């Protein structure tokens, strides 16, 4: 712990006259799970794109392991060990788990022939590392047979195989049931235990509260709250805070609605 994987300082991003991000500070240390919360349009996706190097910030500073980086790009982001796992369309569902993990980086011997045994061995090791154990599935199982949470596991294992230090999970539990969410959380905890970091992005404040060590709340392109786990007593505190941010005057009856929505 302690080592700072990446730090964003005063990142601004504008599209023409519109500010998507207006001076955001964000850092992720080794072995921690940072929860990023924010409403639609708060700037979450812009922030992810900047972290993964797809979008360049208008201004601001990016530090990798406390060293300022110039010429931030997708390649630089990969070199820094940052991998993004998108919720849907990330896997080839008619292929086996092995083929998905080694997609684009097949283990080959001479002339491009696959090292089949080596791939299975590596896949088993990766799946064990994230705590994916099963009596039903083998590395040869088709990804389409897996549940939503288990598919997230395959995507996470693939990111780990890419030597990822920081895995960005973009809404990994949005479409999942409680059981499936528990599986994803299990994988996330295993990844943290292995000394890697996770940026967990979610709509569901309860989910983010349960898994994260630290919270960052984005609102209209600004960090509205950055707090450690021990500074926030409950998910309800976080929800109340979010409501105050969204509607500073307070709206009667809104509290109950939001609570139900978050369940």
């Amino acid at each position: 712990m302690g080592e700072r994987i990446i730090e964003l300082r005063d990142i601004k991003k504008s599209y023409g006259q519109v500010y998507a991000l207006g001076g955001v500070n964000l850092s992720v240390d080794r072995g921690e799970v940072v929860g990023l919360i924010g409403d639609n349009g708060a700037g979450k996706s812009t922030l992810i794109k900047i972290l993964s190097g797809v979008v360049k910030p208008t201004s601001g500073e990016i530090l990798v392991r406390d060293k300022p980086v110039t010429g931030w790009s997708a390649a630089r982001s990969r070199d820094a060990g940052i991998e993004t796992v998108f919720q849907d369309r990330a896997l080839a569902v008619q292929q086996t788990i092995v083929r998905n993990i080694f997609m684009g980086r097949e283990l080959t011997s001479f002339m491009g022939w696959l090292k089949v045994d080596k791939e299975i061995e590596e896949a088993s090791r990766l799946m064990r590392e994230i705590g994916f154990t099963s009596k039903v599935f083998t590395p040869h199982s088709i990804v389409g047979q897996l549940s939503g949470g288990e598919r997230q596991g395959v995507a996470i294992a693939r990111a780990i195989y890419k030597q990822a230090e920081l895995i960005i999970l973009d809404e990994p539990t949005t479409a999942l049931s409680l059981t499936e969410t528990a599986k994803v959380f299990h994988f996330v905890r295993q990844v943290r235990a292995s000394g890697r970091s996770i940026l967990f992005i979610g709509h569901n404040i309860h989910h983010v509260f349960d898994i994260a060590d630290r919270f960052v709340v984005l609102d209209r392109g600004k960090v509205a709250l950055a707090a450690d786990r021990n500074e926030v007593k409950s998910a309800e505190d976080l929800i109340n805070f979010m409501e105050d941010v969204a509607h500073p005057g307070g709206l009667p009856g809104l509290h109950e609605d939001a609570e139900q929505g978050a369940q």
Partner: protein
Amino acid sequence: MSKAMEPDLQTPLGTASGKAAKGPAKEWSHPSNHWLRGFVIDNRASLGTLAVFIVMMAVFMIANPTVFTTWYLYSSVLTTLPVALFVVVPLVFVVTCGEIDLSFPATMGFASWVFALVVQAGYDPFIGIAAALVTGTLLGFLVGSLVVYGGLSSLIATLGMNFLLRGLIQIINEGRSTALTGLADSSAYKIFSSQVWGIPVQIFWAIAFVVFSALLYNRHRFGAQVKVVGDNPDSARQMGIDVKWVRVKVFVFVGIGAAIAGTFSVMINFTWWPTAGDGYLLPVLASVFVGGTPTWGGIGTVVGGAIGAVTVSFIQTGVVAAGLSGFYVQFFNGLIIILSLLGHKWNQARYR
């Protein structure tokens, strides 16, 4: 998994209750470790095709048992089947990649034309074969680039290329065929088109091609990337696969296969016709889908495609041998295709 994955979001899973419930975790065990069951599950598409073939042959044999004991029947199928196999197998790759190629008949005609020209000019047939392979590769690259970099529908673009190339052949040759009388004495003919123990030797080359391609499909980076691109091109691109180049390569593979097929068909007949390859379009396409490769891309089976080709080529011979008139051939063609598709639909789940 069910016991270990209780919906308890607070306690870390796999520590206290999770591990204890499972005991020493035996990871990655198959539901049935019996090798036969695993083999059937992994190869059910091609096994289904084999079942269709066996049932069809059984019906023919019951109708007229004596004809099916004569060797001539099989010998005639074994002469023409290899030509089809050389294009059916690459087409399995194309369909798996989510594309289709209807231009292979013209490529067969074009490449074998080059072969005929080189041989007619007095060069060794081996040089002719090399020239045909180069022609097939270039035409495959041309068609593939048109579809991929031109962003065209492969169905329509390759149909257009089929007419275009065939038209070029017809314009230049004005319907004239080329007889290659000296071919029978060449060593190339002995290697590629003679008979060993009464069996046409080209079937051995075709089997070698099928085995090589099946390995390419299942045990090579090329096959792996073709499947992933056909399955989910967005994901493949995101993972650093050059999706466009993979797509071009499958068309090049068809070009090479078509060149081999065209050359073999000329060597069997000692004559090149301007229509060479034309008759293969529909039987070859039918073979791919009868073989158990679905239309939607991502999965397929090379061995199944080969069995499909055997099935389709036995329909005509079998119908006639069973004592039915030639008018029944088309009906049986259709029947086999429809029955196979129904079987595969029941046999294959499509995952999304």
